């Protein structure tokens, strides 16, 4: 097995949305077919966020900067999709096995026919990626086109090694990337490429980019999307220090806890069973007339009355009358309500 990664270089990405388009066309994801139903967003970004039919989205954010030579603006064009965490919280909490780590590549695989639509993954993703596709009651997120990656037959593009298979061996987004901002190869190679690129950007003689950084190496113990960023991660809609919340941790404790409680209960009861073996109980008889409880094996009177010095009959009558009256009232009310 090897560890693969998608490489994305913000310094080369032109925001052409070829990837956004190719993702939908390859994965046969629909876009709205109604007339004028897409809301104008006031931005080059559309739709504004991922949704049940959109797994990959180009983001656009303008940052005001004081440096007048740069025309007072930096334009962060970002790539929003599943980051394919090395330790994916979504796969940890996924109750149905729909999300799992693919052993051959390290990507977070989606078997959407196994998805039970619980959306636990949506709740725990530090990047807020998985979306619910209501039409199929299933989760929708980037699959890293594992169908292509694992079946594909041909040559890789943009300089990466792909998986070594011939054509179609890289995800649809990588394949279609015109400016060669996307690449695909072993995670090790992609990391090396990213660090080399950051070095290059920081040291360019013209227009050096001092804020260039690698994203996806140390964040969350690493992701299988390795990014080269020109500006601060937040401007690309990426948390600077992504964290998985407490819930998945708690949830993940439930499984061992359940196992422990189960085993402890059964063990305790087993012990109880053993100590109870051979227990034999004497036959008891109650004489309503004398109100004596008699051990028939020994003939001994165990107790008289209720054992606390009270007569039984009177108490029993009173108790049952009260109970019957209460129930009857409740039932009548219920019937009235129905009528």
């Amino acid at each position, binding site marked *: 097995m090897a560890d693969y990664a998608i490489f994305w270089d913000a310094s080369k990405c032109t925001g052409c949305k070829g990837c956004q388009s190719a993702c939908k066309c390859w994965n046969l994801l629909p876009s709205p077919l109604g007339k004028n139903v897409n809301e104008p967003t006031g931005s080059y970004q559309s739709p504004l966020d991922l949704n049940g039919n959109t797994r990959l989205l180009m983001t656009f954010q303008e940052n005001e900067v004081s440096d007048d030579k740069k025309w007072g603006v930096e334009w962060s064009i970002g790539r929003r999709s599943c980051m394919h965490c090395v330790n994916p919280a979504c796969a940890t909490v996924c109750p149905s096995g729909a999300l799992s780590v693919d052993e051959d590549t390290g990507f977070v695989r989606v078997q959407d026919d196994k998805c039970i639509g619980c*959306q636990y993954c949506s709740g725990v993703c530090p990047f807020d990626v998985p979306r619910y596709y209501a039409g199929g009651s299933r989760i929708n997120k980037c699959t890293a086109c594992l169908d292509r990656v694992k079946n594909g037959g041909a040559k890789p593009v943009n300089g990466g090694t792909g998986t070594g298979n011939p054509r179609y061996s890289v995800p649809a987004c990588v394949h279609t990337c015109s400016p060669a901002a996307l690449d695909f190869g072993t995670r090790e190679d992609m990391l090396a490429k990213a660090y080399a690129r950051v070095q290059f950007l920081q040291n360019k003689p013209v227009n050096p980019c001092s804020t260039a950084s690698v994203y996806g190496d140390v964040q969350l113990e690493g992701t299988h999307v390795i990014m080269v960023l020109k500006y601060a991660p937040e401007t690309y809609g990426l948390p600077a220090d992504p964290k998985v919340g407490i819930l998945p941790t708690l949830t993940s404790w439930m499984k061992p806890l359940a196992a422990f409680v189960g085993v402890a209960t059964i063990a305790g009861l087993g012990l109880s069973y053993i100590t109870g073996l051979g227990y034999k109980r004497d036959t008891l008889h109650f004489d309503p007339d004398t109100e004596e409880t008699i051990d028939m094996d020994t003939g001994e009177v165990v107790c008289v009355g209720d054992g606390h010095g009270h007569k039984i009959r009177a108490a029993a009558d009173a108790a049952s009358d009260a109970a019957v009256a209460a129930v009857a009232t*409740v039932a009548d009310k219920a019937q009235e309500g129905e009528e």
Partner: protein
Amino acid sequence: MTKYIQRHSRQTRITHGVFISSCILLAITGLFVFVPPLTQALPASVVYGIRMAHRVLAAIFILFPIVSAIIAPKGAGHFFGKYLRKWDKDDITWLIRFVPYMLGPKRVHMPDQRIVKSGQIVADGMLILISLVMIISGFGLMFGGTGLKSVSLLFHDIGFVALILFGIAHIYLGAGIFQPYRHTVRLMFGDGKVSESDALYHWGHWAREELSSGANVVEKPE
């Protein structure tokens, strides 16, 4: 001839039977969801089947007791009403002695009990509570947004853990696997009758009242 007290009606027994069957099946189907490796090993169509079965079972689990209560509101009132009684000294004593008793029924003697034991109130009460937690969190999982879902998930999981504890204990005792509780299985899965001797052992106060009034007492040959 031995005297028997009619403790549970046929409807109660059927309701209980269906309810706990669905509960156990829910636990099993839920287990496949709870432990992802189990599901990963299965084909998608089977997982889908399990997922749908879980929903159908949940519907039975919720609806059957409600339907039963609507058919016989009086009986339902009686069934739940008995858990709402006042506690006395015997009840406390019983609870204190419970663990030693479980591990040494031959030596530890339990005080007489009323129609339901204090331990039963706790245990059955817990089961009812867990059921409610499971039902509510289940709805949360099905219809909630992502935030509610995460919380619901936690509660569904906690409920499942509690269910393991109380459910197994209930089966252990209710099915009469525990030596002193032999024969109790017939109360829910037999004719609903308890023998005079067993009744006096388990629910002394109640048995004596029933035997005194004789309304629910039948005599049958040994």
